[in-house]
């Protein structure tokens, strides 16, 4: 029997500080075994359990894209024991990875559609995976317009700054970066994500909106999207709940009868409206 609790070993090749509050780092991991590299096939939106041996394991959305072979990338906020020791881990250290876990963004359904990615703060990780996937030259033709609305409190709190600058130069993305208050040297928008969403006003026609962010951003972005005419099955979200096993057994991440780890983390707003408000 395949043991779903056993992690595969991966080498940390880059531990990179993302935000100037020093709380979010990105970690690039390289497969150690060829076989693991071949077998670890994932889709944007999935997550994995990252092990710091001796400290424990925690679940994180995969921020890399399947179009970036040989590595996995995670962006992790420092909040507890595992994440703190992860931040302190030196490059070259062996870490463990268990996954991929959970469902994913519905790639097949998204094909042929315009895509609007809306995100705030460090929730951008799996959306970075999806954007990178869509922007890959082999995939770009499968999708319509790509609009990204991404906000943070300050410019220094945006993730993937270099990549955002690259994307800004491309003609096949409509990228809107926004911050809460004006800042020196800032070339993007100023204002909260829901308000910028209304300003940008993406058309709901043949479109899916994928929204990942803190609860308060979600709360105010939903009415904005509804006002623009998005139906609840055109809005896709990714939930987070505390998890341990990642395989639907340890009992803590359920929302109603659904386990976020096994049945999610990706749900449409239509599905979420059917579930109890316990997330």
């Amino acid at each position, binding site marked *: *029997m*395949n*043991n*779903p*609790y*056993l992690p595969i*070993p991966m*080498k940390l090749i880059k531990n990179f500080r993302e935000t100037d509050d020093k709380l979010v780092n990105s970690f690039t991991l390289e497969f*150690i075994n060829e076989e693991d590299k071949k077998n670890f096939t994932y889709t944007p939106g999935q997550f994995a359990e990252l092990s710091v*041996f*001796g*400290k*424990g*394991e925690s679940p994180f959305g995969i921020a890399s894209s399947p179009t970036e072979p040989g590595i996995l990338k995670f962006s992790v*906020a420092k*909040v*507890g024991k595992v*994440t703190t020791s992860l931040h302190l881990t030196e490059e070259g250290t*062996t870490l*463990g990875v268990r996954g991929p876990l959970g469902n994913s963004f519905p790639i097949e359904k998204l094909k042929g559609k315009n895509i609007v990615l809306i995100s705030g703060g460090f929730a951008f990780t799996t959306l970075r995976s999806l954007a990178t996937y869509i922007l890959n030259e082999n995939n770009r033709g499968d999708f319509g317009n790509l609009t990204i609305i991404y906000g943070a409190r300050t410019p220094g709190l945006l993730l993937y700054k270099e990549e955002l600058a690259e994307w800004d130069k491309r003609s096949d993305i409509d990228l809107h970066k926004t911050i809460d208050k004006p800042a020196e040297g800032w070339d993007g928008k100023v204002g909260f994500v829901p308000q910028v969403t209304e300003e940008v006003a993406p058309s709901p026609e043949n479109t899916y909106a994928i929204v990942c962010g803190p*609860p308060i951003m979600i709360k105010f972005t939903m009415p904005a999207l509804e006002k623009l005419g998005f139906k609840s099955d055109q809005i896709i979200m990714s939930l*987070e*709940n*505390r998890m*341990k*096993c990642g*395989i*639907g*057994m*340890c*009992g*803590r*991440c*359920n*929302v*109603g*009868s659904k386990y976020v780890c*096994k049945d999610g983390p990706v749900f449409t707003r239509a599905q979420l409206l059917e579930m*109890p408000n*316990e*997330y």
Partner: protein
Amino acid sequence: MILTKKDVPNFLDSLKNNYQVFAPVKQDHYTEFKEIENGADAVLDYSNTKTPPKKILFPQSEKLYCYKVEENGVQMEEKADEQQKVIFGIRPCDAKSFTILDKVFDNNKYQDPYYLNRRKNTILVGIGCNAPESTCFCTSLGGGPFDTTGLDLLLVDIGDCYLVEVISEKGKNMLTSCKEAGEEDKKKASQVKENATLTTSINIEGIKEKLDNNFYNEIWDYISEKCIGCGSCTFSCPTCHCFDIVDETADSGGCRIRNWDSCMFPLFTLHGSGHNPRPSNKERFRNRIMHKFNYFVETNDITACVGCGRCIKNCPVNMDIREILEEIQGLEARSVS
């Protein structure tokens, strides 16, 4: 088949040649399932054990694997338990609970090798309940004092001996030296079964739908007021399966260990951000009831309660799940929405 009571110790001793044998063993003022050293240690005239035998297949604390971190990789050693086991003298409610746990550890996507291996290698020899306790309500959940769900053999106490009902092939193969039951024995057994009556019965029909419609009902505000969130109910429940996974280390090595956890504890669902989707006893208590009588039914088509009554007996503030269920059953008339 017939197994005389005085032959039980020898029977168990002979089983020990091929199996790890677990049976109810007398502790101070209660009984617990333990691996027995002598067949004579087993007590079969017990009411029910304080904690369920689920710990034999799903230990309260178990090593999943141990590891040693090295220069370029990590050595991992899986902790597999391949020993053949017999749980002797298990009550029908507890045997049924394993058929419920099976659905947890073998879900539509993943299999838990630790539980499933032990389960596969374990024979369940049940003992019927001639005198159910006042806290028992198995019949309300489709079970019964002589229900055979999940069992390989069922013993019926008919005085000096047990009438053994063979349920499975695995069970049959254990009974090589038993004599056939006579007509008289069979008559006694059916008499015993008839006399075993439960004092409480609750109607759980339609409770799933009631719970569907009343998630936001004010009943949850007061129904859980008395609860102190100690988790006794979950730790003594034969179908509760929540767990945590932690690392324990020494030098460059360590082990990943799984421990029982409880949905009644605030830390169980606390996010790293400080947000807690089930912040008070109200939400946690509601989740426990919903999980057993609604969510689990939704996912697995079976209620995750066998009516063993342990949560009633072990609750320090005398909460009674039967009263809660009755309260919910009465909701239709009371419901405001």
